[in-house]
């Protein structure tokens, strides 16, 4: 059983006890502990159940590569699943639950899957649950999803806040171990701006644990000095608790800072996502130890040798009283020696190599430790906890030679450089046969815009595993960065490390070498996804020999740890099964993030009120105060209608329409686009943009215009006013303002750059208020300041002046068929005008109306609406708008397209009005059916509804629609089936239902 020793633990403060809860039990650890070290220190080796077979699992690693000890951490609105216990710093009051078990960690009914394991090989689900078809969705999948899976999702909205941070710098060094510190120091001494980040909460990496000496001093002393020197430099920034999550094109790097990963009253954001643009990136990300594949290597108590050393040295925690070491390399002897020196028993060092000659084994021998050369583990004994190991000849088939009682196993299959970040943006790897790992190929780095590599590796991340080699490699990395950035080296000289020499490792991909099927089915490769040696071999046998196929078939490396421990071992097994060399098999693709990051950090501040910008008109607050029911139009909010107390939405809309038609209504039209076009070529430019002729428009007059895309489709409409000889003002739809502005700029900048035209989008400079209805003129005359009589300002004219002392431009245009003025006023005075209109018009029955009343009134007049009558496939000719298409012009955008045979086809669906026989309202989007069926056996159709409303003016349903040869068929009756299948019959009529002669707007 794991215990906390009475002394030791360089990272913990034994004077500060932290209380926390695990699975509902009160526990205690020390300041400086991780959740994993605290649990181990409390004797809790069992930390979770496995994904598929629900096998008992304990912690394997001491860092974020941990596959097993995943916890749900926090509660309620701060709950987060799948947190890696060794990378979760302990804090007072932390609450953690283990995962993937029911009803409890100790007693788990899902563990029956272990007994069934031989019936649940890779691909089992694919093969088994495909029949009967419907069973997958309703029976198998729900069951499988419940029994397999990791943490449960949070149920409440996240209570914390998050943010982003954008910087540019010369060099980012990723990793604050001795290599990263060295590279950062050398780059900084040369005068470069340096950001050094480290995912852990302390500097120094493994060197202090491994007893490295640098420049004659213990590594820790050198680390402290170097960090202090760096912190004092103005061109250096240091960040602990910050993980590089991904490297992207052009030196773009995402880094994930855990600012306040605990409930906190300071107001600090929980996580901060750094978006860094660096000229060069140094990855000093170290290496990760590989497990060995022997039977039952997943029993709690089996850990990586380096992790055992970490828990011992960093936290004063022993994984067990008796720890067997199993290795293929010299490094694991450091663990044996450390355990022995801590007074713990190391019954045997099981070394797969036949000859053992290095300095570290020699030291172990002199300490009296037993070394068993050429030996392997045949099988680990124990269920929820290691009770012993059965040993065998490594070269044999697993015949047991000896059994040793123990409660922990420290395994080491060698170390693999962390190549993920190097690989994210295309860095290539080479196979290093001597160290049996893939390492970055410095000649094939990810390249930046200048065609040169922008990522450099340093230290163990380059494959320079020993401290002395790592430091020289880091110095060389710094040199490469300085050369690339034309920087002269500073005065600092690179440090030197003293470490014992190490003998080469022996690649061991399976233990023992000739293990049979029984043993192979118990050798875990991917602990988190429960993938075993037998699964990978099965994949190869069934033809999934490509590494990417084998990965997907077995799910090897597809868990939240993305195969940090399992990758190389799995590749080696696949290579062996294929009879190929490992480099021929290659690796799967490394993708960001390196370790999962919180969704909150990705969203940053964009949540709640800041989820997206809401655009407000100058009258927004007034609308809000008057019960406006909002309609989102792009990012604007426009009042759909103003609800009075006790009133339904439909009643409110009808009230607003009837009042506008009989008295006077006010509409906030501020959102309409207003683009000024100025210059000697302005008329020519607008003639190209609009289908009509705009250059002939007289100053002081307005004209309705249509804009088409190059393909002829109607994209926007609006009223154009000629302000002066060389200046026009183009109104666009609300949603079209930015788009049409960009459209204009694009044509001016890319096609007609010699034309003398400037444009400006003045949309937001103005509040615009439509004053609509038979009493509109009376109301405006009460404000005073302008002659708005029929003769002074005729229909489709505009005039500048003042109303009630406010500077205004009045357009006499109508989208409702009524006498109507649209009044533009500088936005800062919009509310003043609105208030004046309301007070002056009180006895006239003035009343604001919303967008729905606007829609109904325009439909009563047969006016089209962009987005209702158009959908990107409709040309103006379909809408009977031929009158707005100039026949005189040589060209306009869309003209050529509109001449294509399909566009001139008389069989196109064309705009008509629709009047139901019953007076009912047609359903939106309903289709008119025709006789017979089409090639797909579907009922043929001959038209569809584009706009449909109840008209309170006419007290009946009115609609517009596009109908096959519509205008030729006036008077015919069409059938529109409703969703329930019952038909609605409607007669084809003119689309103008109200005041067809247009007399009311021209009074």
């Amino acid at each position, binding site marked *: 059983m794991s215990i906390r020793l009475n002394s030791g633990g360089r990272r913990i403060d034994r004077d500060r006890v932290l209380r926390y809860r695990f699975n509902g039990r009160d526990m205690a650890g020390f300041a400086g502990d991780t959740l994993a070290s605290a649990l181990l220190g409390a004797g809790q080796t069992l930390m979770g159940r496995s994904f598929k077979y629900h096998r008992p699992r304990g912690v394997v690693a001491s860092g974020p590569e941990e596959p097993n000890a995943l916890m749900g951490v926090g509660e309620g609105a701060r709950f987060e699943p799948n947190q890696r216990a060794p990378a979760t710093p302990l804090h007072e009051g932390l609450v953690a639950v283990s995962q993937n078990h029911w009803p409890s960690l100790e007693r788990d009914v899902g563990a029956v899957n272990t007994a069934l394991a031989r019936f649940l090989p890779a691909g089992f689900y694919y093969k088994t649950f495909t029949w009967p078809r419907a069973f997958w969705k309703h029976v198998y999948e729900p069951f499988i999803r419940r029994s397999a899976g990791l943490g449960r999702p949070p149920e409440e909205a996240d209570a914390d*806040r998050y*943010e*982003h*941070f*954008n*910087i*540019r710098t010369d060099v980012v060094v990723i990793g604050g171990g001795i290599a990263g510190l060295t590279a950062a120091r050398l780059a900084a001494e040369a005068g470069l701006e340096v950001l050094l980040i480290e995912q852990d909460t302390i500097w120094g990496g493994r060197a202090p644990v491994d007893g490295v000496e640098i420049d004659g001093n213990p590594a820790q002393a050198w680390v402290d000095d170097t960090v202090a020197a760096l912190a004092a430099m103005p061109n250096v*920034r240091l960040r602990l608790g910050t993980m590089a999550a991904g490297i992207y094109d052009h030196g773009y790097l995402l880094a994930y800072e855990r600012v*306040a990963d605990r409930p*906190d009253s*300071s*107001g*600090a*954001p929980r996580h*901060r996502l750094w*978006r860094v643009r660096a000229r060069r990136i140094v990855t000093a990300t170290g290496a990760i130890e590989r497990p060995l594949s022997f039977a039952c290597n997943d029993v709690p108590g089996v850990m990586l040798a380096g992790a055992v050393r970490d828990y011992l040295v960093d936290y004063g925690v022993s994984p067990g009283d008796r720890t067997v070491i199993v290795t293929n390399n010299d490094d694991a002897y450091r663990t044996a020696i450390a355990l022995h020196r801590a007074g713990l028993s190391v019954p045997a060092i099981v070394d797969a190599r036949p000859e053992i000659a290095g300095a570290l084994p020699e030291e172990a021998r002199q300490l009296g430790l037993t070394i068993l050369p050429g030996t392997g583990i045949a099988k680990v004994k124990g269920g929820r906890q290691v009770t012993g190991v059965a040993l065998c000849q490594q070269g044999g088939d697993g015949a047991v030679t000896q059994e040793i009682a123990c409660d922990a196993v420290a395994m080491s299959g060698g170390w693999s450089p962390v190549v993920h970040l190097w690989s994210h943006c295309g860095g290539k790897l080479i196979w290093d046969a001597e160290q049996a790992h893939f390492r970055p190929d410095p000649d094939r780095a990810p390249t930046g815009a200048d065609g040169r590599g922008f990522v450099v590796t340093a230290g163990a991340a380059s494959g320079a595993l020993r401290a002395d080699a790592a430091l020289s490699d880091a110095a060389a990395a710094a040199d490469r960065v300085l050369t690339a950035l034309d920087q002269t080296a500073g005065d600092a000289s690179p440090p030197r490390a003293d470490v014992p020499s190490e003998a080469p490792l022996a690649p061991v991909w399976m233990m023992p070498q000739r293990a049979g099927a029984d043993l192979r089915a118990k050798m875990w490769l991917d602990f988190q996804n429960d993938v075993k040696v037998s699964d990978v071999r099965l994949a190869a046998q069934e033809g999934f020999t490509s590494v990417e196929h084998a990965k997907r078939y077995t799910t090897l490396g597809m868990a939240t740890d993305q195969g940090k421990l399992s990758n190389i071992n799995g590749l080696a097994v696949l290579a062996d099964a294929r009879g190929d060399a490992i480099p021929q098999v290659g690796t799967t693709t490394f993708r960001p993030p390196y370790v999962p990051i919180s969704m909150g950090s990705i969203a*940053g*501040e*964009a949540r709640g*009120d*800041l989820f*997206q*910008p*809401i*655009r*407000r*008109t*100058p009258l927004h607050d007034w609308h809000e105060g008057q019960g406006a029911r909002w309609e989102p139009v792009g*990012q*604007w909010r426009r009042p759909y209608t103003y609800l009075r107390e006790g009133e339904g939405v439909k009643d409110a809309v009808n009230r607003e329409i009837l009042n506008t038609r009989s008295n006077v209504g006010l509409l906030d039209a501020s959102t309409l686009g207003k683009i*000024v076009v*100025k*210059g*000697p070529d302005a008329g020519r430019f607008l003639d190209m943009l609009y289908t009509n002729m705009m250059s002939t428009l007289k100053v002081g007059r307005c004209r309705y215009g249509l804009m088409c895309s190059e393909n002829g489709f109607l994209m926007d409409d609006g009223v154009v006013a000629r302000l002066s000889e060389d200046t026009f003002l183009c109104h666009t739809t609300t949603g079209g303002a930015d788009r049409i502005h960009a459209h204009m700029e694009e044509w001016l900048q890319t096609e007609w750059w010699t034309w*003398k035209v*400037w*444009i*400006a989008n*003045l*949309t*937001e*400079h*103005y509040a615009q208020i439509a004053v609509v209805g038979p009493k509109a003129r009376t109301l405006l005359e009460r404000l005073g300041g302008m002659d708005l009589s029929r003769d002074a300002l005729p229909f489709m004219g505009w005039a500048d002046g003042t109303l009630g*002392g*406010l*500077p205004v431009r009045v357009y006499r245009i109508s989208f409702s068929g009524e006498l109507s003025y649209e009044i533009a006023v*500088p*936005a*800062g*005075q*919009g*509310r*003043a005008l609105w208030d004046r209109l309301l007070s002056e018009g009180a006895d006239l029955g003035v009343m604001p109306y919303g967008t729905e009343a606007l829609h109904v009134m325009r439909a009563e007049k047969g006016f089209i609406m962009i987005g209702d009558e158009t959908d990107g496939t409709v040309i103006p000719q379909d809408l009977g708008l031929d009158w707005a298409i100039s026949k005189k012009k040589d060209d306009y955008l869309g003209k050529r397209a509109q001449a294509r045979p399909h566009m001139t086809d008389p069989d196109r669906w064309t705009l008509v009005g629709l009047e139901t026989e019953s007076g009912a309202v047609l359903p939106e989007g309903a289709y008119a059916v025709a006789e017979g069926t089409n090639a797909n056996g579907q009922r043929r159709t001959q038209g569809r509804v584009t706009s449909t409303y109840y008209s309170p003016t006419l007290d009946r349903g009115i609609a517009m629609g596009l109908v096959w040869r519509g205008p030729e068929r006036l008077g015919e009756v069409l059938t529109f089936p409703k969703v329930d299948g019952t038909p609605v019959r409607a007669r084809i009529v003119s689309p103008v239902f109200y005041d067809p002669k247009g007399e009311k707007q021209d009074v």
Partner: protein
Amino acid sequence: MSEIATALGGARSDGLCTVCEVPPLGMIQIRADLGATAVRDAVAEGAGVAVPDVLRATTEQGRTLCWFSPDEVLLILPRGEAPSALSALAEAMEGHHHLAADVSDMRAVLRVEGRAVRDVLAKLTPADMAPGAFPPGSVRRTRLGQIAAAVRMVEDETVEILCFRSVARYAFDLMTEAAREGGAVGYFDREA
């Protein structure tokens, strides 16, 4: 003439920085070919301020001219001077193809002040807020959160943000959130 309302009525918040909406200003958008010396000179004459270099602003006698693009500058001036400045521009630019429009009501201006101002802005904009890249007198049209905005470094610890009027509330809330206590980054402001 009735009182001119700003988008936020002079809203203010305090945190790592103070954020406040400034009272109404005059603004004139000028579009012209600033690459042509004669045009540049005419703009300077009409505006009463030298035409700034790329990404810079020039300030003379209470007027500031901000570089917005190779063919656009924004003149910021006291509200009451806008009409006369428009006339002066029209006169000076006579014969030069240009567009000058009163846009005094089109934008909101937020003044953000405090030692942490660079750190706060760097939370929201991808533009480089380092003192070397963005010294006082600089202007960037960039992105703040999800909106377009112009950022002008007025002095070492003072920034003015110009955004469209309709999103003033969002911009204010965004700056307030970024400047909330507890969120000091300490990157540019190393004392934090």
